[in-house]
């Protein structure tokens, strides 16, 4: 053929690479521009509010004492497991809906797309914490006004930050499992097995096997997160060490393998 023909070059010097902030905005918008995405966000807020309303009603009816901290603790039944699901769907929906083909042809630097999604997940974790604090304030005030028992408002800035860290960890764990499996149902099943079945197995193992009892704190990421909401905001040095080591196992390693997989995957 016309081998002598010179292929004209494409002048790309005038085009700036897509800025990261625009990728984040695009990824953020993808989370609420479908009915299913929007309803997931709405239901997270509704479930969080619902759990607190039930809590405040029961406390009022049975003259129990509840405080601000109790309302935050109850979120382990709401954002505690819905944020990880959001983290999973952030990533896997691109595969189940096959939109990854469009996303990665518009931005071939896949790492940036995935990191943008991660940033969106963290934005939602922060937003969820803000909404939770607001709801907890309202519920505590309602309890204070209606009950004879004075409400316990005690909650420090440090506790707030630890609570935020807890939610970010939850979201990231879901995201890491999603990157590892790239499949919504599989990642959700894995996450629930990890958070509901694994602690039991670890518990039994620690009970029966002596040496396992010693290493369990270092490999049980669920358990290592307990000090983040169970105490008055003081986490000991050893507890931080447990958190770091188990976090590497359950969060960093899956995330790294997942990233490597997404970068190499053939996108269909």
């Amino acid at each position, binding site marked *: *053929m*016309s081998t002598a*023909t010179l*292929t*004209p*070059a*494409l*002048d*790309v010097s005038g*085009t*700036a*690479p*897509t800025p990261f902030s*625009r*990728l984040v*905005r*695009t990824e953020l*918008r*993808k989370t609420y*521009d*479908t*009915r*299913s*995405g929007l309803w997931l966000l709405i239901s997270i807020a509704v479930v969080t509010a619902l759990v607190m309303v039930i809590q405040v009603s029961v406390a009022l009816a049975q003259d129990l004492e509840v405080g601000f901290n109790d309302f935050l603790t109850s979120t382990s039944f709401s954002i505690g497991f819905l944020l990880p699901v959001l983290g999973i769907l952030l990533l896997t*929906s691109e595969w189940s*809906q*096959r*939109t990854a*083909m*469009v996303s*990665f*042809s*518009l*931005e*071939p*630097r896949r790492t940036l797309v995935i990191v943008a999604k991660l940033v969106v997940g963290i934005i939602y974790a922060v937003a969820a914490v803000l909404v939770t604090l607001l709801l907890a304030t309202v519920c505590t005030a309602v309890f204070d006004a209606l009950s004879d028992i004075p409400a316990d408002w005690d909650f420090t800035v440090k506790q707030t930050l630890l609570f935020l860290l807890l939610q970010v960890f939850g979201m990231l764990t879901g995201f890491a499992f999603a990157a590892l499996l790239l499949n919504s149902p599989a990642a959700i099943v894995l996450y629930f097995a990890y958070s509901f079945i694994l602690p039991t197995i670890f518990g039994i193992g620690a009970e029966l096997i002596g040496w396992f009892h010693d290493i369990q704190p270092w490999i049980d990421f669920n358990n290592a997160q307990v000090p983040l909401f169970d105490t008055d905001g003081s986490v000991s040095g050893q507890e931080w060490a447990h958190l770091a080591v188990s976090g590497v196992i359950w969060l960093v390693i899956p995330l790294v393998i997942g990233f490597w997989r997404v970068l*190499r995957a*053939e*996108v*269909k």
Partner: protein
Amino acid sequence: MITVERLTRKYGAFTAVDDISFVCQPGRVTGFLGPNGAGKTTTMRVMVGLTPATAGSVTIGGHHYHDIPNPGRHVGVLLDASAQHGGRTGREVLELGALSMGLPKTRVDEMLEMVSLTQAEAKRRIRNYSLGMKQRLGIAHALLGDPSVLILDEPANGLDPAGIRWMRGLLKGYAERGGTVLLSSHLLHEVEQIADEMILIGNGRIVAQGDKKSLLANAATGGVHSFATSLDNEALAAALTAKGVTVTSAGDGLRVDAETVEVGRTALEAGVVLTDLRNGEGGLEDLFLELTAETQRETVA
């Protein structure tokens, strides 16, 4: 503008694309033609970096796709019109694209108008779109960033005849303004009407390439033929056979392995009235089927 050099893609023992090289020039529509599973889609996916190549490379205007900043502004891609979130509206898909590429929202309305999707249709969710509407949306998405190169996989799939004619005009105009177009199809007549240049692929290998004329010239061995219908087919067939020309019956008429002029002359000599006589338009089709015969799922009778 698109240069494919010795590209190979293997999946284990299976070779989807086997050492292919070709060039798509600007100002021309290049048709990428081959039966299902010939390797067209794999080649196009390698072009935009969705599938890594096993060996060889593809460059677009001298760049690897990965190195083109904001590639949507330079290369318009439509690989699968169905690969969109069914819950998004058509407009939202384009607005997301515009947001990602950094384009003004007015561009979305321009594109919707260009592909003749009404405002009401654009507000519908994609799961309610027909394949033809998805294709129009996909073409709009590919053109959104005003690229100079277009890579379209089976864009005519699902379009109605009017839609195919519209797309033909659109792509011709685009190439005339200097754009580079590569489109794939498994339907010959779809491609031969649009493409200035054709690349025939079968079994992962290029079996022929060139414009329609040169392809036909090379296929001379395939033999010319014509179709004739007359008031007395039997007499005409007998006269042609007497001249040593192979005649077979085809529908109401005859398929004659000779040029039309030869058939006309024979009819005149035999005194048979011809009611229809035309060139075997299947020349290219025969060539296509013949060249890709080994890879066809159905053997050609």
